[in-house]
């Protein structure tokens, strides 16, 4: 079959790879219909998560049709239309039972790597390096879905393929940021990053009762999209002072909840960008936490900061003083998708949550390299490239 593979730093190519097989009783095989790029792939392809092999199939946000199920699968049948969570989970370990699904104990086939890096191993992800299980990704005609009963979800009739696609990863990630960030009725919520994840976090904050939601980015087309889709307020940090703008908007308090949806390759117009670039080139720092620093600095006293952006290692100039003295709660997580996906599909069906506008560039897999190029460079007003099979 054809699949889009990572072949080296910023080098993706369509290759012929063997069809996936059922390897476990609880596996199923999915014929992929739609699979989208994600900001996390960019961190992978730039080498920030250096546990890839040439020829690894990438992609983890997808939906499709079930074609084969193992004897241990009870919820799905061939022909079913399902959306698959980017995290593979067993559904029965202590973490899964406590709805902390991305921390599943039983799905990372290479636990040693992340145990050494982080102290313990999170669960496995599709197409996200050998540190996260070495599972093949979804930019392929077919994909094996382990623990299918817990990893995949039936799509209701009323939800079209494209809308359902974003219930796989960006939708639940954004929802988690607002939910576990503790958004309350009447809150002011600031979201750094107007990508799919940031936009979904902004919408979740509204639906959870936030009174004002402010989205921050430097790309006007992305900010405009968020304004149009959800009626949020925006700040373009390239021509405005984020701190001053937030203070003014919040009556001098700062946002109650700050959601960071940027990640380890954040950009900045200030001198700290150069500082972080030099340090990361010299390997003195692995990630650039520019938006995290800004969120912590600008959050109101006693407020909460949720880190959705992916980070892999150590950072410096972390504002621990602000965190401690302002009494902040700082939390982060890979997405606990299984906790939110059915609810998100219902909200999409009812029209409350719109997601299909995120797919700005729909193309066949053969144009995969171009899709990543557009997305990486934010060209042609690209929000997400989606591969249709």
């Amino acid at each position, binding site marked *: 079959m054809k699949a889009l593979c990572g072949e*080296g730093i910023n080098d993706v190519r369509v290759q012929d790879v063997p069809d996936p097989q059922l390897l476990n009783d609880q596996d199923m095989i999915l014929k992929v219909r739609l699979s989208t790029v994600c900001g996390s792939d960019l961190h992978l392809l730039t080498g920030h998560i250096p546990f890839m092999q040439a020829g690894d199939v990438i992609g983890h946000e997808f939906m499709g049709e079930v074609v084969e199920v193992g004897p241990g699968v009870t919820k799905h049948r061939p022909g079913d239309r399902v959306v698959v969570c980017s995290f593979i989970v067993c559904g029965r370990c202590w973490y899964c039972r406590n709805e902390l699904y991305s921390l599943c*104990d039983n799905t990372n086939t290479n636990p040693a790597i992340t145990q050494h890096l982080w102290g313990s191993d999170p669960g496995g992800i599709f197409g996200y390096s050998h540190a996260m299980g070495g599972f093949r990704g979804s930019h392929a005609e077919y994909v094996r879905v382990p623990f299918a009963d817990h990893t995949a979800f039936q799509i209701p009739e009323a939800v079209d393929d494209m809308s359902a696609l974003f219930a796989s990863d960006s939708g639940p990630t954004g929802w988690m940021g607002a939910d576990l960030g503790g958004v309350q009725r009447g809150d002011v919520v600031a979201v750094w990053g107007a990508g799919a994840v940031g936009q979904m976090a902004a919408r979740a904050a509204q639906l959870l009762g936030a009174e004002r939601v402010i989205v921050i980015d430097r790309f006007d087309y992305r900010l405009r999209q968020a304004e149009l889709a959800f009626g949020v307020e925006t700040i373009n940090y390239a021509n405005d002072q984020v701190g001053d703008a937030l203070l003014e908007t919040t009556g001098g308090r700062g946002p109650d909840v700050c959601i960071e949806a940027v990640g380890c390759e954040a950009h900045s117009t200030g001198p700290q960008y150069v500082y972080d670039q030099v340090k990361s080139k010299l390997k003195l720092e692995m990630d650039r936490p520019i938006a995290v620093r800004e969120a912590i600095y600008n959050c109101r006293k006693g407020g909460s900061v949720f880190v959705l952006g992916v980070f892999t290692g150590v950072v410096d100039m972390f504002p621990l003083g602000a965190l401690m003295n302002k009494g902040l709660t700082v939390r982060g997580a890979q997405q606990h998708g299984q906790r939110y996906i059915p609810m998100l599909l219902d909200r999409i069906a009812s029209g409350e949550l719109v997601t299909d506008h995120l797919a700005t560039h729909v193309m066949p897999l053969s144009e995969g390299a171009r899709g990543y190029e557009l997305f990486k460079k934010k060209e042609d007003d690209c929000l997400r490239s989606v591969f249709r099979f």
Partner: protein
Amino acid sequence: MNTAGKAAVTAGVVAAYAVVRRRRAAAVQPSDRWPVVTVSRAPEEVRASLPEDLAHLHGQVEFQVRPATGDKGTELVAKASGDVPRHELRLAPRRMKAVLEAGEVVRPDVAPTHPGPMGKALQLVTSRAGGGGRL
């Protein structure tokens, strides 16, 4: 590949080698801490499935079962009484936990056909990573 990219990949492989090195260096000493996992099942259920799941280690490893704190289930400790490689000692309880909790041990997907030199180095690590690590 640009310089930053090469540096990143090299850092990854160095980290990966560190995983292997640590594993090799870790000969089982009497004073070593034993690997232990927590199984989200009751102690009786864990005890009941011990003999069949771990028959191949009979006589070489002593398994101890004790209740975990709170609602966490059961702690399963693996102590070597014979000459068991550390890798085996770690792998056995982890696999048993997966079977008890999830019904099976998830198998990795087939590796790429042309992993490249860095990928080959990584394969060296991942071929053992199921039994490596801190647990």
